[in-house]
């Protein structure tokens, strides 16, 4: 090839590559691009989001020079409002609703159809509760607490025991080092059940019957732990759903203390959340599991398929190979998210007058809560919008999927045209950007509290900025590859 030809080939290749990246729908050999009406390529959104984060970082450095979330700003509402919302009667009503819905779910799982999309239990647990409570918690506070069926059952059993034995039940002392670790492990186990164990059953995914058995087993375990350590102690530290939804409620402007509803500065609850072991693990588990769920059908798909083929070649059965592969990649996602966070913390440690590594690791864990929420919104927004139509129409009227029509809505369907692919993408981008800017703000506030001097605090946050930009680009990459 002559030099001129080679130069022409290089220029042609560069132009073609630029075109391929700018108009990917024209260039991909075997990809279906769902959002052809985006004004710019998806990756350019990651660049724009990074610019927003950098600008926010400098705006915070310039205008936020004293900590605003460290001081307790909680103020109680008037007695009438508090009594109306958090007194005994509404608490008993909420507990009864919670126990009833848990019962309906288990009953539907055991007795209803095995078709996952026609049975009440899967949508109710994995969509309505799992995605709905974080959303409500961020807006209104710890709403799950009064509805928690296990807390209601545990308290009822405890009260009955007290009435018969005429003394409160004896409790073991909860080990302080255990902190929120049981809740973090429970969270991973819950997601594993849905996306790994369910996926292993190649024909049907997670069946309603398996979900009902898992709910019964979890109920037994939770009541046993409550009997050992006390209802409130286990709710506060070990019961996965309570601890998980409570984590999101720390961002809310409302909080109940000693039976009174009050108002506080939004996000200020988060500053006092990460005070015990396992807090980092919980929030990392939230981000890591969501990342894996998004990546398994996009970014990690080829790698997962390759590993799966190798395991099958090595003699594993299809289900075992799939579950083992997914478990390994889930673990990889958890470790990856933890490593990025610890890298940010390690970077902060290099700034003069930095607190100990342990204090930094725990002290900045709450800055990941808005990111965990943003990941949930970004990854499950469309699922939530579509499945909730099913939840409140045909699944409500026909929970067992046996042809009944309790509320006359059994024949309704899901309107998939309610939100388009482009709208979903914009919601995803907005959620990720807002979530990371909130995380950056919380981190900046905490840094000022730790370093005192806002200039040193800003220096320490260079590394958290890198973490936030990394998480944003990674999240957008996962979403763009999953949506292809």
């Amino acid at each position, binding site marked *: 090839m002559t030099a001129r030809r080679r130069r022409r080939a290089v220029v*042609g290749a560069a132009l*073609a590559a630029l075109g391929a990246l700018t108009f*990917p729908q024209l260039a991909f050999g075997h990809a279906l691009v769902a959002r052809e009406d985006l004004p710019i390529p998806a990756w350019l959104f990651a660049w724009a989001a*990074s610019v927003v984060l950098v600008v926010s970082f400098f705006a915070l450095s310039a205008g936020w020079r004293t900590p605003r979330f460290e001081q307790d700003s909680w103020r109680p509402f008037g007695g009438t409002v508090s009594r109306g919302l958090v007194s005994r009667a509404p608490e008993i009503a909420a507990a009864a609703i919670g126990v009833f819905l848990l019962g309906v779910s288990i009953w539907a799982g055991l007795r209803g159809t095995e078709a996952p999309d026609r049975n009440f239990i899967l949508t109710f647990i994995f969509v309505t509760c799992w995605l709905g409570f974080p959303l409500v918690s961020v807006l209104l506070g710890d709403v799950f607490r009064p509805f928690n069926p296990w807390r209601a059952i545990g308290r009822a059993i405890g009260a009955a025991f007290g009435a018969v034995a005429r003394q409160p039940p004896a409790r073991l002392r909860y080990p302080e080092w255990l902190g929120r670790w049981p809740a973090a492990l429970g969270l991973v186990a819950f997601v594993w059940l849905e996306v790994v164990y369910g996926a292993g059953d190649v024909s049907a995914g997670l069946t309603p019957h398996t979900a009902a058995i898992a709910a019964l087993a979890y109920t037994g375990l939770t009541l046993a732990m409550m009997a050992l350590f006390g209802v409130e102690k286990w709710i506060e530290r070990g019961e996965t759903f309570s601890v998980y939804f409570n984590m999101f409620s720390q961002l809310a402007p409302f909080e109940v203390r000693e039976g009174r509803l009050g108002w506080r500065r939004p996000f200020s609850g988060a500053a006092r959340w990460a005070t015990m072991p396992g807090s980092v693990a919980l929030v990392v588990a939230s981000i890591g599991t969501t990342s894996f769920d998004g990546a398994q059908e996009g970014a990690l798909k080829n790698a997962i398929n390759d590993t799966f083929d190798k395991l099958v070649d090595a003699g594993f059965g299809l289900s075992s190979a799939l579950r083992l592969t997914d478990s390994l990649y889930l673990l990889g996602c958890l470790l990856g998210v933890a490593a990025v966070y610890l890298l940010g913390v390690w970077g902060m440690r290099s700034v003069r007058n930095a607190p100990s590594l342990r204090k930094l690791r725990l002290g900045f864990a709450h800055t990941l809560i808005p990111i965990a929420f943003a990941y949930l919104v970004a990854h499950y927004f469309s699922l939530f919008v579509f499945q909730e139509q099913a939840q409140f129409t045909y699944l409500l009227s026909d929970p067992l999927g046996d042809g009944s029509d309790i509320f006359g809505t059994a024949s309704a369907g899901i309107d998939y045209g309610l939100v388009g692919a482009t709208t979903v993408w914009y919601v995803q981008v907005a959620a990720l950007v807002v979530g990371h800017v909130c995380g950056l703000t919380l981190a900046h506030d905490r840094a000022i509290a730790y370093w005192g001097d806002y200039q040193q605090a800003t220096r320490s946050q260079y590394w958290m*900025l890198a973490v936030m930009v*990394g998480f944003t680009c990674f999240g*957008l990459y996962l979403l763009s590859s999953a949506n292809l």
Partner: protein
Amino acid sequence: MSMATLTLFAHAGHYLWVMYIPPVLIVVGSIVKTTLSERRAEREEQAGAREESEN
């Protein structure tokens, strides 16, 4: 354009992840550069202060 080149570009989508890396690299690079220059300035300041006190 040859078939091999066409095939390469038809699969450009597989390498799109590369486009998500530059923002991270730019931020990390800027942080490293800023941190190093700030440390150098601090060292020079301390050295200057030492010299002044010795004189």
